[in-house]
């Protein structure tokens, strides 16, 4: 009787200990996931902020370049009127028109590059927002259910962070590889 009792007590204690260990392990795993998701959310917010700054900067520069383009186009129109130039061949003989067309080529190339980059950053910003929302939802699930599979989400977040984080430290575009529009086409756009 006494030995049975002792055995029973031992087994009970063992079970309790096992449950305790499992519970603690679960708790620690849950805590780790929560921390990791919180960390990723912070990183997402930070990257979104950086991307927003970049987008804002790019838009500002783009506006400036567009204003310059318009000013040059207006100058070409005046010069054309003054010199009574109708054809492109004659227009390029006028230094002001020729030079302005070259500048407009460059400006349009810069603007196109900026547009491309703005679009890219906006896409990244939206994607990050999507993952941020998912992380928030998963966090709530973890808090409620004490556990949830988040490794996949974290991997996805890491992937997009790895893609966009270096971009925030890079120039918006490469001026050497800017696509230049045809000058005659620009001239025709101005004339017409």
């Amino acid at each position: 009787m006494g030995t049975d009792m002792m055995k029973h007590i031992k087994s009970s204690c063992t079970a309790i200990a096992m449950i305790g260990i499992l519970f603690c392990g679960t708790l620690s795993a849950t805590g780790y996931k929560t921390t990791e998701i919180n960390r990723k959310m912070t990183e997402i917010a930070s990257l979104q902020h950086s991307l927003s700054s970049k987008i804002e900067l790019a838009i500002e520069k783009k506006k400036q370049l567009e204003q310059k383009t318009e000013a040059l186009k207006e100058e070409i129109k005046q010069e054309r009127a003054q010199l009574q130039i109708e054809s492109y061949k004659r227009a390029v003989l006028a230094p002001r028109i020729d030079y302005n067309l070259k500048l407009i080529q460059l400006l349009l190339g810069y603007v196109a590059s900026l547009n491309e980059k703005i679009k890219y950053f906006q896409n990244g910003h939206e994607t990050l927002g999507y993952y941020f929302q998912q992380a928030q939802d998963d966090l709530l699930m973890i808090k409620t259910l004490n556990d949830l599979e988040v490794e996949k989400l974290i991997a996805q977040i890491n992937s997009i962070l790895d893609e966009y984080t270096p971009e925030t430290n890079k120039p918006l575009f490469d001026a050497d590889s800017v696509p230049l529009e045809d000058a005659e086409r620009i001239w025709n756009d101005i004339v017409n």
Partner: protein
Amino acid sequence: MGKKSNKKSSSLSDLEPLEEQEPNQEALKELDARDIIEPLKKAPDNIDDRWQDSETDAPEGMAVGEQEISLDEAAEISFDEVDRHIDSDPENVETEVLLDENDVETNGPIEDDDPPEQESDETAIPLYEEPDDSQVEDQVVSDEIPPDAEPKADGEYSEIVEQPVEDSQHSPIADKSGNDFLALDDDEIDDSIDEKPAEEESSVTGTEEIEDVGDIHSGTRKAEDKKVAELNGTAQEEKNLKTEAKSQIGKISTRGALSSKKIAIGSIIFLIFSGLSIYALLSLIDIKGKVKIVPEAKSQIGEPVEPAQIQAQTPKPPGKYDKYLAKLEEAERLRNDLLQKKEEIYKLNLYYRNGIVELMDQVSDEMQKTNISSLAQALKNNRIELDLRTIQRRQAYIQGLEKPNRWVHNGSEELLFLKRKALLDIQIAEIASGIDLNRHVRYVNAAIQKYQLSAEKLAVDDYTSNFTPLETIWSQIKNQNTERAHTPVSHKDEKIIAEICSGDFKRVAELSTMTAGAAKCLSQMNGSDLFLNGLKQLAPDEAKYLSRWPGNWICLNSIDTLSPTVARYLFKWEGSWISLNGLTEFPPELTLYLMEWKGHQLELMGLDYHKKKPDQRALKYLALWETMGGKLFVTEGVRKEMERAM
């Protein structure tokens, strides 16, 4: 301990007197004399000691460091104040003595163990002392400074001081033993010696030397006392009574003295504290004052020097693009030089053009005068031939100027392009890669090198090869004369002209054609206004005569074109207002003469701005004329274009 103290107190009270002290009087007088002179010098130490004691009792929370600093200084101040106070006030002799005693106490055996009450008792001694009684003073000092009695006096003095005042009040002996003996007269002292001679010897000094001296003195005193007792029995009784009375008075005065001592000590403490507080306040005020004064001083000093400081303190840190911007500024300066040269070329061109027009007018006039109709005849006329050759040369010059003008224009445009491109790249340098600003610098340097102004670069080609044939020039003049010949003077105008030349100017405004003769007659007209709004053309010679009219306002609103020669005469007129509202164009050639006009108002309301033929230069000169003080009347559209041109 209680017994012992009582015993000692009783023995002391018995001793009190002179027998021990008289032998030392001479020596003590010297000490006294020194002490009277010196006490105040030592007093600060004494005060400091008190302050140190008080510091130890200072409440918690007081900053010790601050206390130390302030207290030391306060002690100095308070001491000085007390010193001055004592020196100035004769009533403060007591204070002197008090300080003296304190000084003595510090040097004496009672230093550490004396409680404040003891000091008060001790210092109370001289308060009822008669100031004139120097002997008693000596005794006081001698009693209190028994150098030989130091070991014993330590305990004795402490016990004496510890005795409450009430004890001395209860017993006159106790009064004497305590300290009141110092106030006794010589006679009283003698009496007291008679009463308790032996006890004095044994208890006061406690040293053999003093005992010996006491014995000697007691012997002599006894003999003297006997004689005195015998001779003055009644007197002795009276003296005893007086002594008792005086002792009673002394008790009373002791009470008063104690209270006055307390007041004095309190006042001193009050003075010290007040000095301390004043010092503290002053120091605070000083600190505040310094805080206030320092910025004021800075501002007073700083204000006049402020611009220099700003200049000195705001050196612009070298910017990232300063080097490139400096190069672009250099290019801009060169471009401005080129534009200036271009303007000079343009003016020269205008000058030649106007000269050609004038020469053509001269030739035309000469042709009419001499009735020359062919080039061969014209070439035989030396004047016409030279005019024609001058026209030929000037036309060649005008053609020759095209090359440097084009070179200058190209240079200015290229420099502008390089500058714009460089600025564009600078603008995006921070957000884009692949921008080589040094490449821009190289290009700008090359352009600067290329377009530096020099006589060689501006040199015109051989203009003789560009001469226009004289025949061409002659035909141009003939065509011009033919156009003028198509404006015959109508019959009505002939009549009006006749009226004008006869002095009747009523129908001047109806005149539609002008002749040189009519213009000459009009120049004689009196009046301020001349309305010739019917005229559609004006020849140079007509303008020449009209410019001599001494009026104020001339209206030529139907004239739609103005040749440079006409403008040349017209703008020599000394009137102030010309209306040319029929002009649709105002060529740049005219502006050269307009700039020389001394008039103030010009109406050009008919001037139209042709977008397809915009001549910014003419508008620019018109605007420039306005800036020189002229008032121009033009349409709103032209006004805007003028503003743009400026």
